[in-house]
């Protein structure tokens, strides 16, 4: 619709200055505040037909919202919870989730769009100024409050009767201690728990995936095997706690390629067992580069050289991966010679 359709009497009075023409009202100070600009009418303010159109748009949006809510309920009832559909370009998704989300979203969005359109086109857009008042109290009020306070303090005699004041402060300061003491039973004391794992002399190394004890022949050069101590079971009550310390990485490196003499001695024919728990903050390390014998922790990218006593060669870890001393038992299976010589996992104050 063009402005020609607007009845003559509804048009605003012609403005003296065309847009952009410049007239500085205040000759003395051209930077001074000219005051609020005059209100500019919207088309809805002057043309009832445009206002009607806005009204219909708002009503339409509210109606779409109602229909969407009905569609939401219908989807809830009609669509099975396990049905998947293909939606381009997202792919296969839950049909119910898609239908409920879109209908709920529309129902909500249309209420919002309707309300905002109503406010923008039909409610008054005349700008009004409200006065501000200083946040600070007036000097009289301040004086009155201070006097009141002094009066109150004087009547309580807190300044004069120091014995009362001091004992009160003492009592109030002490009473939260009970609350602090109550927190004691949140957990046991650490003791030396972080120093020990389930590993001990004679404990067989069990393949994490198959649950079978490992023989040297099961570990090929260049492979990475995860292992746990014999006797640990997923069904155990404290399995999670134990596996958080016991998890092992087993690699086999050509003995000539092993740089650290200690590593070679603690292994068996190039089979080396390292803690899988990163010495940085305890993520399980799992990325092995068989050519370089480096392992990388996927959490924070600490990199350890398994051919060189698990030394840190990059990243934020602070010390080498602990190695477990292993050998082959009489029955031909790999077994531990002792527990780890140092605590596994992240460093802590008592680690030393």
């Amino acid at each position, binding site marked *: 619709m063009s402005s020609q359709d607007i009845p003559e009497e509804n048009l605003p009075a012609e403005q003296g200055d065309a847009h952009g023409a410049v007239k500085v009202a205040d000759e003395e100070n051209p930077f001074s505040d000219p*005051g609020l600009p005059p209100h500019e009418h919207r088309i809805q303010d002057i043309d009832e037909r445009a206002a009607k159109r806005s009204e219909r748009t708002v009503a339409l949006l509210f109606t779409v919202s109602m229909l969407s809510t009905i569609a939401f309920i219908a989807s809830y009832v009609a669509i099975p919870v396990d049905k998947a559909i293909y939606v381009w370009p997202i792919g296969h998704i839950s049909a*119910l989730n898609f239908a409920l989300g879109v209908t709920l979203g529309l129902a909500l969005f249309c209420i919002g769009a309707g309300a905002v359109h109503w406010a923008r086109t039909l409610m008054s857009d005349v700008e009004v*100024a*409200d006065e*501000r008042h*200083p946040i600070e109290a007036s000097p009289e009020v301040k004086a009155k409050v201070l006097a009141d306070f002094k009066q109150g303090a004087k009547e309580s005699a807190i300044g004069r009767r120091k014995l009362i004041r001091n004992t009160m402060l003492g009592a109030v300061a002490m009473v939260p201690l009970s609350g602090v003491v109550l927190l004691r039973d949140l957990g046991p004391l650490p003791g030396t728990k972080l120093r020990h794992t389930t590993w001990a002399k004679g404990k067989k190394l069990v393949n994490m995936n198959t649950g079978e004890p490992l023989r040297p022949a099961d570990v090929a050069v260049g492979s990475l095997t995860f292992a746990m101590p014999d006797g640990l079971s997923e069904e155990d009550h404290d399995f999670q706690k134990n*596996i958080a310390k016991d998890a092992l990485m087993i690699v086999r490196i050509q003995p000539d390629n092993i740089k650290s003499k200690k590593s070679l001695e603690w292994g068996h024919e190039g089979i080396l067992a390292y803690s899988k728990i990163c010495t940085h903050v305890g993520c399980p390390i799992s990325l092995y580069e068989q050519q370089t014998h480096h392992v990388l922790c*996927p959490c924070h990218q600490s990199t350890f050289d398994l051919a060189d006593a698990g030394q840190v060669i990059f990243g934020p870890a602070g010390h080498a991966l602990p190695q477990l001393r292993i050998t082959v038992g009489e029955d031909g299976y790999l077994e531990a010679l002792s527990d780890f010589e140092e605590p596994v996992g992240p460093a802590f104050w008592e680690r030393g």
Partner: protein
Amino acid sequence: MSTASTTDARDKRGKAPAGERVADWADGRLGIYSLAKANMRKIFPDHWSFMLGEVCMYSFIIIILTGVYLTLFFHPSMNEVEYHGPYVPLQGQLMSEAFNSTMHISFEVRGGLLIRQIHHWAALVFLAGMFVHMMRVFFTGAFRKPREVNWLFGFLLFVLGMFTGFTGYSLPDDLLSGTGVRFMEGAVLSVPIVGTYLSFFLFGGEFPGGDFVARFYSVHILLLPGIMLGLMVAHLILVFYHKHTQFAGPGKTNNNVVGMPLLPVYMAKAGGFFFLVFGVIAIISAIATINPIWTIGPYRPDQVSTGAQPDWYMGFSEGLIRVMPGWEINFWGHTLVLGVFIPLVIFPLVLVAIAVYPFIESWVTGDKREHHILDRPRNAPTRTAFGVAWITWYMVLLIGGGNDLWATHFHLSINAITWFVRIAFFVAPVVAFIITKRICLGLQRRDRDKILHGRETGIIKRLPHGEFIEVHEPLSQEQLHTLTAHEQYKPAEIGPAVDENGVARKITRREKLRAKLSKGYYSEDNQILKPTVEEYKEITSGHGHH
């Protein structure tokens, strides 16, 4: 007597309408008329950036609504159960009840997945909204007196929101979030002297134990949101009490607030905006999967997936931990785990750096007046430069937090990215500071030109002697006023070295530092003086067109 006369008046007109009678009843007990008198037609100014805070408030409400729904189905327990639900790949697997019930919500409760996804998406929007809202307040100087306390309330909401988010996404006890909790345990262990004790008390023994989900649950649904709700109400009360800030413009002064009334315009606009935010988040949750725990699987301390990332708002702490060199000091049977402890200390310092800025600025300016007119960022070059430097710092750490993703997506060396972040952590904020300040000063110069010589019209005129000039159009008084409304401070001087009695006075370090900072803020090299009326008149009257 007066009671009798009003009763008489009533009787003549018949009974008051029902709504009025209810309002009367409430007023007699709650005093709602006095409350409404001050607030019902309260004026709020309009600017797109003022809705950022609303996004936060509404997403917080959405989080509470959906969160309450989720508590009806979620079991905050770490008891191990075997999965027998409809999701085939996990059938027969051992998992905690927390994970199992989250699977139940996602696959068996109709609409459960939608509510879960709305809850998580709204949390991301909430934190992002708070971040951007905080930057809006920062760059426009809306934190100045009398709003410093409200700035701190908002800052606390942001920090608490981070921890509420962290405790929330850890609840399903899935492999990804469990890895995040393990990281937290490692960080707690690094605290000198008490670290191991803190960790044992937090987890009820050794990690992971059987307690943390239940403990995080009460922190996530009660403790933190309770504090946040209180802070948010206080934040809003202060917004109402202080009245909203506004940008400079014709008719707008430090002593008024120009805009439209709460009833009806903002009731409709802001109320409607709640539905818009909710609607958009619901549609996002319909089409974009978030935290698909079924593909991640239940937590096992010996398993991990690659690309492990926290939610975005924790990313900068992840960056700190990833790029820190692995320093460890061993002495007298103890270990000082600096490689983890230093990031743990810098983590709050990064946040505090932005939180304390308003107090530093007010100390430098020594300005004790109230400020209700917002600054354009260019008109406060040093503040703007500081803010951009801080964002740069934050973003550098975010890059560090996602160094593996940068490496895989852009085919870069992870070592190179890590080293880049290590260097950029120190260098990038300084560079950003300098560049931003130059840009601000450039924009100030442009404003000065515009005021004195008018707007470039793009019309090229050829003079009789052949010279080409561009026609400049002088600005209207509205524009002139808007561009010159800001105040410019003068650098603070160190007072005379002798007092009024001629006795030498000690000039404190504090004074010297303040004078130096003030010079850095407000000397002529650090802000472009706005034109004076005299300069304007001289140029405009002298040789008209230029």
